[in-house]
């Protein structure tokens, strides 16, 4: 389960940033609100750095009046494209896994071909 969680955490971060830029703690809180996604708050930061290194996320400092400066993370065009691709893959993958888990191999085969029965 830990590996699965790790596998989907990146796209979830991209999905949150697709709505609007967020700073670190904001992201952590939003992800924590989705029960079971985060094993620990700290793991978000290495992930953000890796997404940034992959060109999917950028960051910039914002210094709002009356608040301390914060690093805000935004999604890039490449990040949006990657997220869109993941959404397609995920829908098909989830349908396939769901069908197998419920012993419906015919449905699983159809799902794997992208043709729900």
């Amino acid at each position, binding site marked *: 389960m830990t*590996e699965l969680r*790790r*596998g*989907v*955490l*990146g*796209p979830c*971060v*991209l999905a949150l940033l697709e709505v609007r830029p967020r*700073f*670190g*703690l904001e992201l*952590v809180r939003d992800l924590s609100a989705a029960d079971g996604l985060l*094993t*620990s*708050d*700290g*793991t978000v*930061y*290495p*992930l*953000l*750095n*890796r*997404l940034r*290194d*992959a*060109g*999917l996320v950028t960051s910039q400092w914002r210094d709002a009046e009356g608040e*301390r400066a*914060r*690093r805000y993370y935004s999604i890039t065009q*490449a990040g949006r494209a*990657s*997220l869109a*691709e*993941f959404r397609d893959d995920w829908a098909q993958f989830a349908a396939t896994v769901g069908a197998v888990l419920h012993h419906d191999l015919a449905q699983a085969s159809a799902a794997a071909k992208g043709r729900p029965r």
Partner: protein
Amino acid sequence: MTKTAHDHPLVRSYLRDLDEALRGLPPAQARELREQITAHLDDELAPDAPDDEITAALRRLGSPADLAAEAGGAGIQAAAPAGPSRQAIARRRRRRLAVLIPVVLVAGLVTGYLVAVLTAQPLVYNGGAGWWYPQDASRVVYSNADGVTQTTVPMRWRQRQGLFVQVYNYSGWTQTVLGFAPGTAQSPGSLYGAQLGISVREYAHGWPGVPTAQRYALPVSIPPGQSRWLRVLWTSDICETSGASIGIDQLTLVVRVGWITRHEVVALGEGWFLSGNNQSSCYS
């Protein structure tokens, strides 16, 4: 009460442990992660947050060791849907190494080969020598000038003259004599070059047979540890004045060793000279 959350002893202790745990990461990566964690704690904790709240926040963050493991590639890279993962980079490095290692090995072998060939001992004059034609051999005058022995015969104007010397291949490589090196002295008696021949066989170890009884050819390969006659024939056409002499004490050959062709200077051991004629006899 402390000024910021990360001044709290519990937080400071956590950050110290984090610094320690991140020591294995590249410095820039470690600095960035520490800055992110510090900012996270500053955002999450009020400067006067009680110990239990700080302890809970630190627990939620995860242990410094776990954070360092995540940052060091313990698996979070799988979450990145694009871009090279650490494993991909490692695989790429391994592939590059797989290409690079043979290249380095081949380069090393080639370099070793070149060094071995280029340092192979050249052919050397091995003692036996003489004038090729009997009419010259019977008129030899030996002299010594400045410690150098000189063998001199009269120049026979516009006639064939020649000499032979024994050469030995002390190297571990077969050496193939291809000819004279262009632009070098080939004989004592002609401005127009000379004919080079190498005896084609050796009769016994170190003995190339009677020189005048051999077949000469070019190119000829001399195996390691074998001896050959080197014969130089020319038509004398240098009109030297009477009382003067002209000669050579070395020959420069083009020799192929392995895949390499190089120039080898064979010192002839003594000077080979032709003494001049009465100039008027040259063109009479």
